[in-house]
C-alpha cells in the first residue's frame, strides 16, 4: 500500500513539474528576429546550365533560435531609384523577368542562437531559354507576432539577378542630366537648374527599354565659364542598375571620397561625396555613356546639360558690384554727353507744353 502511495505521489510530482515546465518550454520556443543575410546575388548562367550556391544566414540573437520561412517572390522597381517593389501577394502573376520557376531554396530554416547556417540555393535555366536579365527576391520571414492589437513581423530580402548571355535587346535613352539633390532619392524633382548650395552630386537618368538590366560606363565632364573642366570617371560608384522598363536615375559625386568602413572586425570600402569646391557661375555638363552586353553591340548615348551655382552671398555681391558699375557708368555717360553736346538744359513748364 505504501508502495502504491509513493508511486501516486511520485506521478503527481512528475505531473506538477511537467505542468510547471511546459510554459517555460513555450516561452523558449519564441523565435529570434535578428538576422544577417546577403542583400544581393548575381549569377551568369548559360541556358541548359545551373548554379548551386549557398546562402549564408546568421542569427545575431545570442539567446533564442531563429526560425525562418523562405519563399521566392517577384519584384520590380519603385520610381527612379533603387528601391525594389516587392510583390508579396502569393497570387501575383509572374513577371516576364521572373526567376520563380528556376530558383529553389528550402522552405524553412532554423538557426541556433549566435550561429550561422549555409542553405542551398539552386538556379537552373532550361535549354533554349532566351537571353536577357531575370530577377526575383528571396524573402526570409521570422516568427509572426500574433496577439494584441498590433503584431510585428520582421523579414529580410535577398535580390537575385541572373544574366543569361546571348543576343539581347538593349536600348537606353538619356532623359535627364544635371546637378542633383541626393535627398530626392532618384526622383526627377531632385534635378536643380539653379543651386544656392554648391552641388556635390551629378545625376543622369536613363530609360531602359531593353530586356536586360543595364549599368553604363563612360564619363561626365563639367565645364565652367572660363573653360576649366572637371571630369568624373566613376559614373556609377554604387554599382546601381536600371531594371527592365525603369527610368533610372544614377548618381555620382563631383568629388568622391573613399572611406574604409569597419564591420565585424573587417574592413569594407565605401564612398561618399566630398565638397565639390565649385566656384559660383554656370556649368555645362556633358555625358558620354557606353553600354552593351558581351557579344552585343556597344552603344553610346550622349547628353549635354547645365546648371547655375549661385550662392546668396554671390548674388548680393553681384548686385552691389553691378549697382556701383551702373552708377559710375551713368556718371561717365553724363560727362561724355556734356562734352559732346554741352550741358543739358532743364526745360521749363511752358517749353514742355509747346
Amino acid at each position, binding site marked *: 500500500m505504501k508502495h502504491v502511495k509513493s508511486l501516486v505521489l511520485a506521478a503527481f510530482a512528475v505531473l506538477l513539474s511537467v505542468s510547471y515546465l511546459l510554459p517555460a518550454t513555450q516561452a523558449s520556443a519564441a523565435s529570434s*528576429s535578428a538576422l544577417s543575410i546577403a542583400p*544581393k546575388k548575381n549569377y551568369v548562367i548559360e541556358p541548359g546550365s545551373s548554379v548551386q550556391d549557398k546562402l549564408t544566414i546568421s542569427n545575431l540573437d545570442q539567446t533564442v533560435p531563429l526560425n525562418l520561412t523562405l519563399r521566392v517572390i517577384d519584384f520590380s522597381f519603385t520610381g527612379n531609384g533603387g528601391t525594389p517593389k516587392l510583390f508579396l501577394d502569393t497570387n501575383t502573376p509572374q513577371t516576364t523577368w521572373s526567376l520563380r520557376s528556376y530558383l529553389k531554396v528550402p522552405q524553412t530554416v532554423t538557426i541556433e542562437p549566435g550561429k550561422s547556417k549555409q542553405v542551398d540555393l539552386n538556379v537552373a535555366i532550361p535549354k533554349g531559354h532566351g537571353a536577357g536579365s531575370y530577377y526575383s527576391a528571396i524573402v526570409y520571414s521570422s516568427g509572426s507576432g500574433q496577439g494584441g492589437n498590433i503584431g510585428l*513581423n520582421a523579414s529580410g530580402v535577398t535580390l537575385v539577378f541572373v544574366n543569361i548571355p546571348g543576343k539581347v535587346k538593349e536600348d537606353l535613352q538619356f532623359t535627364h542630366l544635371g546637378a542633383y539633390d541626393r535627398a530626392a532619392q532618384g526622383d526627377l524633382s531632385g534635378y536643380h537648374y539653379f543651386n544656392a548650395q554648391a552641388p556635390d552630386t551629378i545625376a543622369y537618368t536613363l530609360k531602359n527599354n531593353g530586356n536586360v538590366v543595364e549599368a553604363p*560606363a563612360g564619363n561626365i565632364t563639367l565645364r565652367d565659364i572660363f573653360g576649366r573642366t572637371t571630369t568624373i570617371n566613376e559614373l556609377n560608384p554604387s554599382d546601381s542598375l536600371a531594371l527592365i522598363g525603369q527610368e533610372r536615375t544614377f548618381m555620382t559625386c563631383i568629388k568622391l571620397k573613399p572611406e574604409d*568602413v*569597419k564591420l565585424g572586425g573587417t574592413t569594407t570600402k565605401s564612398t561618399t561625396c566630398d565638397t565639390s569646391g565649385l566656384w559660383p557661375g554656370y556649368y555645362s555638363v556633358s555625358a558620354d555613356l557606353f553600354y552593351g552586353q558581351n557579344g552585343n553591340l556597344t552603344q553610346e548615348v550622349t547628353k549635354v546639360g547645365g546648371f547655375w551655382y549661385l550662392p546668396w552671398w554671390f548674388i548680393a555681391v553681384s548686385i552691389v558690384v553691378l549697382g556701383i558699375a551702373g552708377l559710375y557708368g551713368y556718371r561717365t555717360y553724363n560727362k561724355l554727353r556734356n562734352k559732346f553736346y554741352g550741358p543739358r538744359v532743364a526745360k521749363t513748364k511752358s517749353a514742355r507744353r509747346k
Partner: protein
Amino acid sequence: MGRTRHLLLWAHTFFHSWRYICTEEFVALLLALFVFMMPVSATTRFETRGLFMQTTEPGATTSYTVTLKFMSPEQVGSVDMLFCNDPIPYMPCAIPTGLDVSHATLTSQSGETGFSIHSQTQNHIIISRTPTAPIYPSESSFTFSGIVNPTDTSQAFSIRMKSLTSTDGTGPLVDFGSVRGQVETGIMIQTQVPPMLVFCAAQQVDDNCTGTDETYYRDMGTLSPNDTLTAQSQMAVGTNASQGFVVTANGPPLAAGTSVINSPTLPTESMPGTNQFGINLVENTVPAVGGNPEGTWANAIPSADYGIANKYKFVSGDVVAYSPNVSLMRKFTVSYIVNSSKELRAGVYTTTVTLIASGRF
C-alpha cells in the same frame, strides 16, 4: 574732341556701307559652306561596334572578337586598339587590372581584311595593312586569341579604337570609337568582406541586433473617441553594401471583421474622435510617443513622409527608412497611434505590420 567725333563718324559710315554687302543671303551662304565643308575633314565614329569575349571569367586566357563598321571613304592602313578602363579617347588610360594582350594573335578577320599585328604591349595592339579605301558599308570583325581577361569584376573596361591612314598607327585619324566589355563569374567570388544586411525588429532591440525582448505584439488598450492609443516598437538595420538598404512597412489596416480603421495616406496629425491608424519613426509630443533614430550612421534616415514629428501615415508597402549607401547599424523607433470615432463598431481591432528590410539595386 574733334578727333573722337571724326572716328565715330568714320565707324558709322564704314559699318553702314557693309550692311548692304553682308546681306542675310550672304551670311546664309557662308553658314551653308561651313556645314558642307566641315565633315570632309572631320573624323567619324565607327558604327555597329561590338565585342564578344569567348569567356568572361576573370583572369582567363580567351579570345576577343571585335566588330566595327568603317564609315569614312579614306584609305585605312592601320587600326589602333587601346585597352583602358575609360572608353573616352581623350581621357588618361588606366590599364584594366589583370589584362594582358601582349601575347595575343590575330586569328581571323572578315570584311576589311589583309591586316596583321604591327605592334603590341600589355594593353595596346596595332594592326596594319597596305593602305586601302574600305568598301562602304564595310562591317568587319577581328578575332584575337591569347588575351588574358581583366580580373576586376566591379567595373567595365573598354577598347578605344581608331583607324588611321598610316600603317603604323600614327598620323591623321580616320574613324574612331570604343567598345565595352566586362568580366563576370558564374558565381561571384568574394575577394573582400561580402555584403551583408543586418536587421531585427521587436518591441525593444539592442543596437547591434545582438538581442531583442522577443515581444512581437502589443495590446494597446480600449479604444475611446476621446483618447489616442499608442504603442511603439524598435528596429535596427545596417548594411555594408554600397547600394544601401530600404525598410518597408507592409500590412492591412487595423480591422475587426469587416469594420476597418483606415489610415491616412498623407502625413496627418493625430485626430481623436476620428478613425485613424498611423505610424512614424520620430519622437512625437502629440501624443507623446516614439523616439528619434539612434546611432552614428546619419545617412540612414526615416523616409520623408514618416519622419515628421506629430504626423502619422500608413500605406502598405511604403518605404519607412532607408540609406542610400553603406550604413552600419542604426536603431529606429516606430510609433503607432490609433484613434476611433464614436460610431466605430465594437470589436477587437488587430493588424500585423511586417517590416521588410531589403538591399537596393
